[in-house]
């Protein structure tokens, strides 16, 4: 087991392995997303209160979920890279950040669009989830800005890792404080049915979308990390021979 992990941490092995794994992420992901989209848009019964507008949940909740998953992946891999000094781990953190930022942005936009027919406004500060997502977007920007500001890759890795970990500790606190803040004025929340209280015809497509998008995120992440690894190891022999021999196009 350790041998496998050790091998995995070696960039050339990771590069080969990830090429084989990516299709295994894309196919299930695509199938789940297609099923979820069709079932969610056409077969799930309309919501009692929100009518057909609630269907936005099928993209909004996966986006929000992924924004948090991406941050977790980013913080954990940054922490592993910092503590055990594994360069590949830092590459994973670097790759996860832009993806997480995109999904956070998507969660905000779909949340705003959903809010318009529900609240009548394009933004509602009283919705704690939306406000928390906005703060998380700033956390992502801060991470990427810090990385960009430091020229030396190793130094940027370590500094941004510290930031990611500090952010990770703060995120639950931020969520809690925003919840408290919005509860002071009975705020309007977007997702009225969060748990198994949803009927199965509504729930299954949602679960499929969440799982499907997770797979797609995984595939995208592996793709980004591959490019990152190639760039970081550009001076090494294995990269040189790889690029020269196979006419590697990616």
């Amino acid at each position, binding site marked *: 087991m350790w041998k496998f992990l050790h091998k995995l941490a070696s960039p050339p092995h990771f590069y080969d392995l990830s090429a084989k794994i990516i299709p295994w992420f894309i196919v299930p992901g695509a199938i789940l997303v297609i099923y979820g989209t069709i079932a969610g848009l056409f077969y799930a019964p309309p919501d009692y209160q929100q009518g057909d507008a609630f269907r936005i949940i099928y993209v909004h909740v996966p986006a929000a979920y992924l924004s948090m998953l991406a941050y977790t992946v980013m913080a954990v891999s940054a922490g592993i890279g910092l503590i055990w000094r594994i360069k590949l781990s830092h590459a994973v953190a670097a790759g996860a950040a832009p993806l997480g930022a995109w999904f956070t942005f998507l969660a905000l936009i779909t949340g705003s669009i959903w809010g318009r027919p529900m609240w009548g406004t394009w933004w509602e500060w009283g919705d704690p989830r939306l406000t928390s997502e906005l*703060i*998380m977007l*700033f*956390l992502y*920007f*801060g991470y990427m*800005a*810090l990385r960009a*500001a*430091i020229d*030396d890759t190793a*130094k940027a890795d*370590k*500094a941004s890792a*510290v*930031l990611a*970990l*500090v*952010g990770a*500790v*703060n995120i639950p*606190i*931020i969520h*809690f*404080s*925003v919840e*408290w*803040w919005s509860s*002071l004025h009975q705020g309007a929340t977007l997702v009225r049915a969060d748990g198994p209280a949803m009927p199965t015809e509504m729930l299954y497509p949602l679960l499929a979308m969440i799982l499907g998008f997770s797979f797609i995120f995984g595939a995208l992440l592996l793709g980004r990390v591959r490019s990152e690894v190639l760039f970081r190891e550009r001076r090494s022999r294995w990269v040189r021979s790889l690029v020269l021999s196979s006419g590697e196009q990616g």
Partner: protein
Amino acid sequence: MTNGENATPGLWQGFVAVIRRDLLLAWKRPGDILNPLFFFAMVCTLFPLAVGPSSEQLSLSGPGIVWVAALLATLLSLNSLFLSDFEDGSLDQLILSPQPLPLLALGKTVAHWLSAGLPLVLVSPLVAVTFHMPGRTVGVMMLTLTFGTMSLSLLGAIGAALTVGLHRGTALLSLLILPLAMPVLIFGARTVALAAADDAVSAGIYFLCAYCILALSLAPFATAAALKISNE
């Protein structure tokens, strides 16, 4: 800096020495202490000027404005926390000292609070008066600002350590710290607003206290790690 002993200075002595040095430096350059205070007062003036002198509006938004101004003024003063040390090589000395770096980082943070946060708390009643804040509310405000500015100094030290010596570090520091400071801002400002509405404030104060203690126990280690990374 000799202390006349043969043995290496102990933990407490190292800690106090760092605080004393920073306070002495701040004392010699009063601008470092006064500028953020003036900034704080000016930002508090900006809002009534921009929004209008309506007394109702001001007393409603007063707690929030004071808190935002305090946050921004603290950010301003955090910039230079490690900058001069970085530039003249004292940071190397700090890192190489026999005392544990987290302790010394905490010392610098304490000195920062004493020279930036505490004056802010002491000046805040003057500003609160302009927002027609009643007496009990002012007391709550000072209490929340005390714990709040302590938390900000602790949290901000991490950011300052991460960005020391970076090009355009100032703006980056703000970008890094502001999202992390949201809980402090939320609980600080809203608790004062609750006090103004004669509601219970204990929840908010307990939270600020708890957050401050959490920051006190974790931030110095993060700051120390960040200092070592930045100084490479």
